[in-house]
C-alpha cells in the first residue's frame, strides 16, 4: 500500500478475427486512437490474436515496452480470457493485469452494416478497458482442496454407468435414486435396437455391479434435499424416504442379527391394499408393500405409506426372526460431502392424451410405445402376450404413429424437437409383432425414418425386408368404431398423393419425451440452466457437452436432451471422466474475485453478513472490536455486500469501486477531464 503508485504502461492489442471484426470496423483507426489514450505505450493489431504468433506479439511487447497492463480488443472473455491471461503471464506479468474489450460479439457482429458507428463504439470500448487496465492490481487465485468423492443423481443406465466409471477410477461415489430400485427406463424395455438383445439381460449385470462395487454407496428411495458449496466442496443433504423396510445391515444395527428384508415377498402376499404398479404403467397391480419387478436392485420391499392402512398383517407375516418391517419410520436426512456431481435424471413421456386427434385414453386400443414395451415383455403384465386392452384379442393390424407430439410447433403438450429414439424403437416394435404374431402386419406412419446410428439404417432395411409397411404421412386423426373398438387411421400417403383411411386393430403412439417435472427443482439446486426446449443445458453444445456453466456439475443421458442408450452411455462415460479430473488433481483454483474487508473502515455493523446469498461473511472480534471477515472459498464475488456497505469498507477484488468508476468516467466523459 505504501509503495509509490506505479506509472501505468499499457499495451493495446487489436484483433481482426479474420474478417469477423476487420470486416465491420476500421482496425487502423482504433489502433491510432488507442495510442492517444493516457497510459498507452504501444498498440498493435493482428489477424488472429489468439494464434501462437498473435500471443507472441503480446509476450514480446510486455518485455520490450516494460508493460504493466494488457488490453486485448477481440472476442468475448468467455472464449479467450484464459488464453490472453496465459500470454500476459508468459510475458512476466501477474495474469490479472489483463483486461478484454469485446469488440466482436458486442460490436462488429451487431453493427455489421455501420462501419462508422462500429469504429466509434470500438474506440469507446478500448478507452473503457484501458481505464480499468490503468488500475489493475496483482491478484493470486486461491487453491482449495477437492473432496475425494462424487455424487450421481439418478440411477438409470446413464447414472449407473457414470457411477461405475467414477468408482472404478478409485473415487467414492454416492449414487442417489428416487425410486425404490435402480435401472430407470431401460429396465422397462423388452429388447433394444438395433441388436435386439434383451434389455434386462444386458442391464442386470450392470445393476449387480453397481450394487456390489466397494466404491459405490447406493442410496435408493432417496432424493436430493439441498445443495451447498462449490466445485471441490459440495455439501449435499439427502432425504432418505421412509421405506418401512430394513436392510439386513439396518436390522443388525438395531440388534436384530440375521434379520432384515431378504426379498421373500411374504409381506406382499398378505397385504390387503391393491394399487396400480407404476413400473407396469398401471397395467398390473401391486400391494401397498411392494417391489417393482423381480429383478429389482436392491432386492428390498418398500411400503407405500400413501396407501398403507397400517393393518400390520405384513409385520406378522415377516416374522420375529427377520423383523424387517417397521411401519413407524419417518424420512431421515443425511449429509454427504463431494467434489463433483453428475445429474442423470432421465425423462418422461409427454401426456399424449393432450393431442386429442389420436384418442389416447379415449380409445381403449390406442397405447404408447412404453406400454407396448411392457405388453410385449415376457416379464410384463401379460407374460409377453400382446393383446388388445379392449377385449384381450391378439391384434393383427397394428399402426405405429411416429413423431406423435414431436417435431410439432403447435404448443400445448407438443414438442418442437425430435425425440430421437422413437423411429428406431417403432422399427423394433414392428419386428417384434412380426416375430411373435403369425400374420401380423405393422403399418408405420412416418415423416422421415431417422436411422442415424451405427447399424441403424441396416436395421431399417431389415425390418422393411421382413414385411413392415411404411406409409409416408403424418397421422391426421384416429376414429374408433364403438362396437368393434377397431381404429381407423386417417392420413395422406404423401408419396402417392392420396388420402388414406386404414382400419387397425391397435395403434401405438411413439409419444414425444420431455424433462421430468422435478428436473426444475434439481436444476435450481445445482445451479444449472435449461435450454429453450426445457432440457438441462450443457456448457457448450459441441465442445463441452457433458459440463454445465456451474463448475463441478456435469450431465449424463436424456436429462440433457433426447438420446438412445448408446449415446447415453457414451455421455455418461464422458461426464464421469470430466467429473473425475478435479478430484484427481486434488485441488481447484478459484478466481480471486473475493470481497475483502478494509478493516480500518469497517464499523462492525454486521448488515452485510445477512445479505450474502452464499453465507460467506461473518463478524469476528479483532483487537477488541467486531469486524467482518470473508471466507474466500465461499464468496462468489457477486458484489451484493460491496454495493451495500454504508462505510465503503468492502472491496470487490478485480471489480473495485475505483476501477468501475474509472470505466464509467471513461465512457461518459469520452476521455475528457475526470
Amino acid at each position: 500500500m505504501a509503495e509509490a503508485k506505479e506509472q501505468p504502461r499499457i499495451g493495446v492489442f487489436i484483433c481482426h478475427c479474420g474478417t469477423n471484426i476487420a470486416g465491420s470496423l476500421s482496425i487502423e483507426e482504433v489502433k491510432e486512437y488507442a495510442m492517444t489514450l493516457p497510459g498507452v505505450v504501444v498498440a498493435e493489431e493482428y489477424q488472429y490474436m489468439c494464434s501462437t504468433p498473435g500471443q507472441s506479439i503480446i509476450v514480446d511487447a510486455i518485455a520490450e515496452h516494460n508493460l504493466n497492463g494488457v488490453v486485448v480488443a477481440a472476442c468475448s472473455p468467455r472464449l479467450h480470457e484464459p488464453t490472453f491471461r496465459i500470454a500476459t503471464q508468459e510475458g512476466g506479468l501477474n495474469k490479472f493485469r489483463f483486461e478484454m474489450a469485446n469488440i466482436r460479439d458486442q460490436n462488429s457482429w451487431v453493427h455489421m452494416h455501420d462501419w462508422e458507428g462500429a469504429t466509434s463504439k470500438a474506440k469507446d470500448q478500448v478507452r473503457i478497458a484501458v481505464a480499468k487496465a490503468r488500475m489493475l492490481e496483482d491478484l493470486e487465485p486461491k487453491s482449495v482442496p477437492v473432496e475425494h468423492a462424487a455424487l450421481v443423481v439418478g440411477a438409470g443406465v446413464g447414472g449407473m454407468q457414470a457411477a461405475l466409471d467414477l468408482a472404478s477410477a478409485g473415487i467414492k461415489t454416492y449414487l442417489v435414486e428416487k425410486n425404490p430400485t435402480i435401472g430407470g427406463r431401460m429396465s422397462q424395455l423388452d429388447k433394444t435396437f438395433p441388436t435386439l438383445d434383451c434389455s434386462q439381460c444386458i442391464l442386470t449385470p450392470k445393476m449387480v455391479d453397481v450394487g456390489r462395487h466397494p466404491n459405490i454407496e447406493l442410496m435408493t428411495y432417496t432424493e436430493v434435499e439441498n445443495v451447498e458449496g462449490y466445485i471441490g466442496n459440495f455439501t449435499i443433504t439427502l432425504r432418505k424416504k421412509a421405506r418401512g423396510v430394513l436392510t439386513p445391515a439396518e436390522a443388525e444395527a438395531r440388534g436384530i442379527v440375521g434379520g432384515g428384508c431378504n426379498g421373500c415377498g411374504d409381506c406382499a402376499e398378505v397385504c390387503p391394499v391393491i394399487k396400480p404398479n407404476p413400473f407396469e404403467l398401471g397395467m398390473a397391480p401391486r400391494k401397498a408393500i411392494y417391489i417393482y419387478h423381480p429383478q429389482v436392485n436392491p432386492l428390498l420391499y418398500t411400503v407405500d405409506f400413501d396407501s398403507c392402512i397400517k393393518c400390520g398383517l405384513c409385520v406378522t407375516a415377516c416374522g420375529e426372526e427377520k423383523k424387517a418391517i417397521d411401519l413407524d419410520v419417518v424420512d431421515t436426512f443425511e449429509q454427504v460431502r463431494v467434489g463433483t456431481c453428475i445429474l442423470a435424471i432421465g425423462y418422461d413421456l409427454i401426456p399424449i392424451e393432450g393431442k386429442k386427434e389420436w384418442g389416447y385414453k379415449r380409445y381403449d386400443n390406442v397405447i404408447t410405445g412404453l406400454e407396448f414395451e411392457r405388453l410385449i415383455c415376457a416379464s410384463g403384465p401379460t407374460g409377453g402376450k400382446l393383446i388388445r386392452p379392449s377385449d384381450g384379442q391378439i391384434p393383427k393390424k397394428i399402426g405405429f404413429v411416429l413423431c406423435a407430439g414431436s417435431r410439432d410447433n403447435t404448443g400445448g403438450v407438443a414438442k418442437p424437437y425430435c425425440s430421437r429414439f422413437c423411429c428406431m424403437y417403432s422399427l423394433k416394435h414392428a419386428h417384434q409383432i412380426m416375430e411373435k404374431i403369425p400374420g401380423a402386419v405393422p403399418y408405420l406412419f412416418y415423416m422421415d425414418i431417422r436411422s442415424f446410428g451405427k447399424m441403424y439404417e441396416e436395421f431399417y432395411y431389415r425390418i422393411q425386408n421382413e414385411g413392415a409397411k411404411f406409409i409416408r404421412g403424418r397421422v391426421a386423426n384416429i376414429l374408433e368404431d364403438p362396437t368393434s373398438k377397431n381404429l381407423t387411421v386417417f392420413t395422406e400417403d404423401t408419396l402417392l398423393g392420396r388420402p388414406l383411411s386404414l382400419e387397425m386393430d391397435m395403434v401405438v403412439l411413439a409419444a414425444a419425451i420431455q424433462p421430468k417435472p422435478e428436473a426444475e427443482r434439481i436444476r435450481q439446486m445445482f445451479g444449472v440452466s435449461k435450454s429453450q426446449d426445457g432440457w438441462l443445458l450443457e456448457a457448450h453444445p459441441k465442445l463441452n457437452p457433458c459440463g454445465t456453466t456451474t463448475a463441478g456439475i456435469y450431465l449424463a443421458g436424456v436429462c440433457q436432451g433426447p438420446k438412445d442408450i448408446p449415446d447415453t452411455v457414451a455421455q455418461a462415460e464422458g461426464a464421469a471422466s470430466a467429473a473425475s479430473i478435479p478430484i484427481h488433481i486434488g485441488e481447484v483454483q478459484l478466481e480471486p474475485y473475493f470481497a475483502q474487508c478494509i478493516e480500518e473502515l469497517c464499523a462492525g455493523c454486521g448488515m452485510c453478513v445477512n445479505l450474502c446469498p452464499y453465507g460467506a461473511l461473518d463478524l469476528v472480534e479483532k483487537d477488541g472490536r467486531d469486524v467482518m471477515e470473508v471466507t474466500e472459498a465461499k464468496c462468489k464475488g457477486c458484489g451484493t455486500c460491496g454495493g451495500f456497505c454504508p462505510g465503503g469498507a468492502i472491496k470487490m477484488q478485480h471489480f473495485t469501486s475505483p476501477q468501475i468508476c474509472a470505466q464509467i468516467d471513461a465512457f461518459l466523459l469520452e476521455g475528457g477531464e475526470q
Partner: protein
Amino acid sequence: MATEKNYGNPELEAKLRDRYLYTDDTNPEFLNDVKKVSRTIAHMCYQCGTCTGSCPSAPRSSYRIRLFMRRGVLGLEKEALNDPDLWLCTTCYSCTDRCPRDIAPTDVIMAMRNLAFKYDIVPRNFLKTVQLIYTTGHGVPNNDVNRSAREKLGLSRDPPTTHSYPEFMPGIQKIIDHYKLKENADRILAEEGQ
C-alpha cells in the same frame, strides 16, 4: 395383328412432354405474395400430409391441399392459380387445426384465390355467388322448399337476415361496390359470354 404406329397422336405427344421442373417455371415472388396475403408461415411446410389427411374435400376430389402448399414453397404460381382444384377447399379449417408446423393452409388457399382473382381466374359459380349476394345478401338465397320446411319447424318463413331486413341491402352493396367485386364479376361473366 394390325399394328398402329400412332405417330403424331396428340394424346401421346402430351404424355411424352418434358416434365422437368425448370427454374423458369417458378416465380420466387409468389411465395412472398402468398405469405403477405395469408399472414401465415407458408414457407415452413414440411410436407407431412396431415392437412390432406384431415381434409374432407380430399377423399371426394382431386384437390390436395399439400400440393398447393408445395407449389407455394416452390413459387409455382401458374400451376397453382390455374388449377381448378384451388376452388375445392370448403374452408372448414380442419387442416389449420392440425398442421404440426402451425401453418394455416386454409389461409394459404384463400390467399391464392385472391391472387387468382387478380388474373380474372375465378370459376363461374363463385362469380354468380357474388351476384346473388349483391342482389339478396345471401350466397344461397332462401327458396320455397326451405320456406315450407321452416314453417314446419315452427320458424318464420324467412330468417332474420337481409331476407327479413332488406333495408340493410344498400350497405352490403356499398361494401361490394367499394371492392369492385360485382363490377368485376359482371365483366368476367360477360367476357365469357354468360
